[in-house]
Structures are given as C-alpha cells and as structure tokens.
C-alpha cells in the first residue's frame, strides 16, 4: 500500500456537508484538502450586495430577462435568484445537462466556495423514526441501516454548533432540536394558529425552525433582521460554511482549500481496493492533476457526487465506482414543493411588524402518523411551511385602480394580510427515477453530462392534492376572507431537496453505502451529502445531511486510527 499521501483526507465540495466534513476531520487532526468547483469567495468581503440600498439594485429588482434567458434559464426559477445573488449561482449555458422536454428537472447549483449554504432557506428539522422506518414498513425502497437513536446525539451536536432557533413542541413525528429562543409569530399568524389548532386537535402550527441566530454564538452575531440572508451575512447570523464550518476548520491549521477545482473522477486501485487519487481539472487553466489522500469524502451535492462516481469507471467498476449493486444513480428523490393554498383577510388592518423575519411558520406532518389513515389514498405525508404577511405597495399598487392623490393615499397603509401554506411532500424512492451519464454529450471539461429521468408519480400527486385540499380547509377554518387553492408546483428539483442516487443500506447488493456513509466495497470512500439518502421524509433535509456527515467523519477517523481505512 501507498505510504505517502498529499493529504490525509480530500473533501470534494465546500457546501453544507463539505464544510462539516472538513471541520470534523481537521479538528480530529487530519490534514484536509477541500476541492471546490466554484469560484473563490471570501466571507464578508465578497458579499458585495449585502445591505445594498434598494435604489442601487439594477432594474428596480426586475429580472434581467435577456441575460437570464441566455445564461440562467434554470437557476432564475429559484426564489433566491435575482440581481443581488446572481454572482453566487451556476451559469446554465456554461454547464449544460440533459432532460427530455416532458420530464424537466431544475438542477439548482451554486458556483462559489460555500456552495448552496450561502443561499439556502435555512429551515432545519429532525427526522424521526416515522421516517427511518418508513421504507421497511411500507416496502418502498430498502430499509435504512440506522434509526433515530443512531443520529440523535449528532443532531444535538450539529444544532449547538450551527445555532437553531425554534420552539419545542414535543411531537413524536418532529423531534425537538437544541433551540435558541424562537422567533415570534406575527399577530395574524398567532390568530391563525389558534383557530387551526382549535379546529384540528391533532394539528400544530409552530414557528419555523431556522438556522438563524436569535442570540450570539461564538464569534457570530445574532440576526439583525435585514431580511436578505441570501446575499450573504458578514456577521454570520445564519449558518453557512463561511460563517461556521470553514472558519472552524481553518482555525486548526489543517485545512487547505482549492477553488476552481472540478473533480473529474476518482482513481481506484484494485490491488489495495482503495481510492488511490482524485483527478482534478482546474476550471481556469484547464490543467489536470492527480491528488492523493488516505481517504476521500464526497460532498459534492447529491447530483454532483453521483456524477463523479458514475464517471469513475475502471475494470473493477465498469458501471461506476462503488456500483456493484447497480443502484448508483437510481432512487432519486426531491420534495414536491408548492403553494398549496393562500387566504386573504381584512380582519387586521392596523397590524404591522418591525424587522424582517428570515423565517416563516411550520405545520408538521399530520397524515399517516400511525400507519395508513383510513381517509387518505397515499403513503407517507407532507408538512407545510407558511407565512402571513401584509399586502404592501408592490401587491396593492397593481390592484388599485386610478392615479393621483387618491391612488397614492390608497397605497399608504396595508389593509389586507395574506396567509400562504406551502406543502412539502415526501417522494417515494423509485428505481427508475434516476440520473445517468449521457453517452454523447460532454461539458466544457470533457466530462459526460448528467441526464435526468425523474418524475413524480401517483403517490406524490395524490399527496399534493390532499395537501392542497387540507391547506384550503385550514385557511377557511382560520376564517380567512378569501381562500384560493393553488396546488401546482415546479418540476422535480424545484425544492432543491434532491436526495438519493448512492443510498445507504445494510445489503451491499442493494445499496452503495453502509450505515456509516462508507462505500460497501471501498474502505476509504465516504459519501455524506444528500445522495446517501434511502428515503426522503417530508422535512427539509440539510440538518440530517450535516448530522450524517459529522457521524461519518467520527467513524472514519476511528477506523483510520485502527488501521481499517
């Protein structure tokens, strides 16, 4: 076996999970190199639009249509994409991928160090055994190799490190986190909560659990409620790799980070049955290099990591690295994500708010909690994010007829509030919801393009329909003046909760990774981003990715020290 290495560990990707892997591994004394395909970005200094005054934002905040149509036709669909954040996002024209017109997939990607952790929605929720046992109980997908107890302490550890504000509710389907003080609901949400909970005894509306600090944490300041997190936060009030994990890793003196570094594939050595090297292309010079390490953590995003594995073919692994099971790229999932219903009320004309809350409300799953409910036609369930907000000038101006003094005065004070509920539905793992490498098309580095073949099926659509119906009924129960069911959302990928493709499992014949995110066949390869997921739950997944990463890093170092990696 090789005796000298460039690094102890290489982490591919610097987003939510790459940052966590680097932090844990460096703090345990390993020399770590992060390879990030995106551009360099410095915390604070490069948040060039942070607190940009409204009058300095191009085109009054309207989309630069020509540019978006040419360079950002996919990315510009994201709510967090606009002229104040465009510099963080991937250029679609330069990074093409493949899907059939009838089966679109939105692959939303960052193009900077820190990845999507810069622009993420920051909602964090624990899984419960309702989620970890779901595959086993209803037979979709394969059983998870872990249960809530295996990850519980890692959730706590991650939450205390990243800072999570929220309200303890003691719900079995949504375990409480380690909370900083909760943000307030606004006065309209408070009334709606009361009315929904009175009408539905088994339902609960709580404030969103969010990785924004309500109290200072270490060097990081508390939220100042400016409301535009996705532009970057120089006081580090929300969790990102830049505010939390990368500084911690740098502090150890053990971290190296190379931006503009596209990983083409991993080299497998059949003699030692280990990853021998990582093949890298410099995105600026196009220069190729090979870097060696004792172990590799793939944290390149769900699709990115699967692409790297599929593109790492050898005699030993002709169908992609760690793919003896043949399941690599299969069982891909996202969450259905759409406004289910909105309601409008004129009941609270004098109510307003102070500060822009970077958070909404959450209405946890209430379907199929104890086996299949008798009155539903789908497996598993959904939760709602939501928010009540007053209709301010931009909404009211377009609807207020006329012009002149009366028109101007009519815009002075919001008269109506709108309440929206957006359902996030669990998607089942299907073998033929998959990504693969296109056999002809390559990208600008010569790497085969990813082809997406992912659609929602009957279970997802029935669940979405129920979420729409329930949301509308709850808003009616909350005495909203006008309720409009909506229901339809974007294509898969829209929730940016893509998961699966290199799932964990007990059986190497049916899964890519073991219970510690380690490749079944390759002791020094760990994959800890969303690709490891064997099912999708209905809650936002990033917290679980982080907890799994920290857990896997702990295991990896223990194994390394025992000479087993």
């Amino acid at each position, binding site marked *: 076996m090789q005796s000298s290495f460039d690094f102890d560990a290489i982490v591919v990707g610097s987003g939510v999970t790459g940052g966590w892997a680097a932090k844990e591994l460096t703090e345990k004394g390993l020399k770590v190199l992060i390879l990030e395909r995106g551009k360099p970005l410095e915390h604070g200094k490069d948040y060039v639009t942070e607190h940009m*005054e409204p009058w300095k934002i191009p085109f009054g905040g309207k989309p630069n249509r*020509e540019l978006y149509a040419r360079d950002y036709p996919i990315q510009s669909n994201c709510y967090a994409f*606009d002229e104040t954040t465009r510099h963080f996002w991937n250029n679609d024209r330069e990074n093409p991928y493949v899907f059939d017109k009838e089966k679109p997939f939105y692959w939303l990607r960052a193009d900077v160090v820190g990845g999507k952790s810069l622009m993420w929605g920051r909602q964090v929720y624990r899984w419960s055994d309702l989620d970890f046992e779901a595959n086993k109980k209803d037979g979709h997908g394969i059983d998870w190799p872990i249960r809530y107890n295996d990850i519980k302490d890692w959730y706590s550890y991650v939450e205390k490190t990243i800072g999570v504000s929220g309200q303890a509710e003691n719900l079995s389907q949504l375990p409480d986190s380690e909370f900083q003080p909760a943000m*307030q609901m606004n006065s309209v949400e408070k009334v709606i909560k009361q009315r929904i909970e009175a009408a539905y005894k088994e339902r609960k509306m709580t404030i969103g659990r969010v990785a924004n600090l309500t109290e200072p944490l270490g060097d990081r300041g508390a*939220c100042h409620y400016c409301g535009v997190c996705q532009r970057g936060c120089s006081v580090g009030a929300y969790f990102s790799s830049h505010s939390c994990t990368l500084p911690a890793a740098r502090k150890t003196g053990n971290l190296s980070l190379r931006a503009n570094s596209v990983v083409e594939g991993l080299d497998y050595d059949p003699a030692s049955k280990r990853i021998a090297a990582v093949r890298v292309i410099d995105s600026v010079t196009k220069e190729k290099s090979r870097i060696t390490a004792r172990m590799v953590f793939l944290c390149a995003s769900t699709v990115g990591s699967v692409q790297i594995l599929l593109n790492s073919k050898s005699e030993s692994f002709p169908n992609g690295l760690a793919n003896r099971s043949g399941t690599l790229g299969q069982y891909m999932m996202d969450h259905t994500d759409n406004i289910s219903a909105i309601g409008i009320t*004129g009941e609270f004309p004098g109510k307003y708010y102070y500060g822009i809350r970077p958070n909404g409300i959450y209405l946890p799953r209430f379907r199929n909690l104890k086996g299949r409910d008798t009155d539903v036609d789908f497996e598993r369930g959904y939760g709602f994010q939501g928010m009540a907000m007053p209709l301010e000038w931009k909404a009211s101006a377009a609807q207020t007829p006329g012009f*002149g003094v009366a028109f101007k005065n009519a815009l002075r004070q919001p008269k*109506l509030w709108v309440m929206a509920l957006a359902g996030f539905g669990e998607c089942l793992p299907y073998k033929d919801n998959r990504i693969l490498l296109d056999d002809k098309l390559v990208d600008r580095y010569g790497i085969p393009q990813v082809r997406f073949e992912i659609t929602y099926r009957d279970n997802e659509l029935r669940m979405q329909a129920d979420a729409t119906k329930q949301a509308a009924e709850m808003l009616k129960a909350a005495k909203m003046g006008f309720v409009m069911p909506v229901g339809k959302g974007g294509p898969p990928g829209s929730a940016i909760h893509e998961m699966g493709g290199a799932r964990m499992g007990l059986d190497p014949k049916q899964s890519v990774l073991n219970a510690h995110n380690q490749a079944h066949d390759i002791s020094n390869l760990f994959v800890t981003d969303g690709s490891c997921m064997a099912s999708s739950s209905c809650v936002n997944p990033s917290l679980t990715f982080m907890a799994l990463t920290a857990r896997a890093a702990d295991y990896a170092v223990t194994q390394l020290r025992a000479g087993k990696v």
Partner: protein
Amino acid sequence: MNRREILKIAAAIMGAGLSGSLSQNVLAGLSPTAKPSRAIFNANSSKTVAVLAEMIIPKTDTPGAIEAGAPAFIEMMVADWFNDDERKIFFAGMASLDDFCKEQFKKSFLACDEEQRTAALKDSEKSALSYKSAAPAVDISQKYVDPNTPFFTKLKELTVLGYFTSEVGAKQALSYNPMPMRYEGDYDFDKVGREWSW
C-alpha cells in the same frame, strides 16, 4: 373589496413567488440618478413622461414622482429593460395620448391643462382595463411579466416601481431601516405610519 379584486391581489402575490421565505423576495429599486444607456426620449417625450409620472404619484405631504427621480427610472427601463415590442407599445401609448388631446381639445397633450390631461390619462386607463392578460393568473413561476400589457399598465407599473425604490421614495414615502436589530411580530402600523422599504 369583491371576490374578483381579491383574486387579482392573490395572483399578484403568487407572482411574487413563495418558497420557504416569502419575505426574501426582495423589492428593489434604482438610484434616481439612473441614466439610460442611450437617450431614447426626445425633449417632448421626456417632458410628457415626467408629467404623466407626477400625475400618477403627485407631490402631497410626501414627494411626488418627479422629486423621486421616477421619470429617469422610466426612461432607463424603456431604453434598457423593455424589449422592442414593449417599447413600441410604450411609444404608441404616448402618441395616442396626443391623438386623444388633438381630437378632443385640438392641442397636444403637453399644451393641455391639468383637467384635459387627466381626461386623456383616464381614457388611456379605460382602454387598459379591457386588456386580458394571456399569462395565467395563478402561476408561481411567473417571474417574467406579460410583455403585451397596455401602455397605461406599463407606465403605472414603472412609475410606482421607480418611485418606491428610489432613495426619496424609500426614505420619505416608505420607512427605510436596513438594521432593525430585532423582530416584533405584533407592531401597530401607527407606530411607524409608513410601510417598510426593504
């Protein structure tokens, strides 16, 4: 407030898009000193646009559209943001105001008095009301506006956007407070008296 009006408001909200954080859909603006990349208005159309903008948002106890720099914003958007079709609709709309005034009052729009100009703009609004947008009313991915909306709709939208996203609008018509430092969910509107700019 009838059902139809509320529906329209709801549609506008949907257009703003909602994911985890509705509040993150930043409403934004431009400096009142914004300059179009090329001069697109002659002296006459510049003056006409300024008059129209001020008619939509006049000076009251708070500044009007001209003081906020909305006319320059409108010219920049017409020159640099509109596509050819939208630009055509805009210029045709201004011309039709003149046509209306010449027919009704035998003089150009700018030569008319306030009452006559108001009649002309009301006529423009009336014809705009009959327009039915081809864009679906409820579509959360509707990030791009309907390019075929009539002149009055375009003029009003740009005036309102230019006004409220200007520094004058943000600080005087709205309340600009980029560092609130705390969140209070139960806050009487009267304590601030104006909507927030953010």
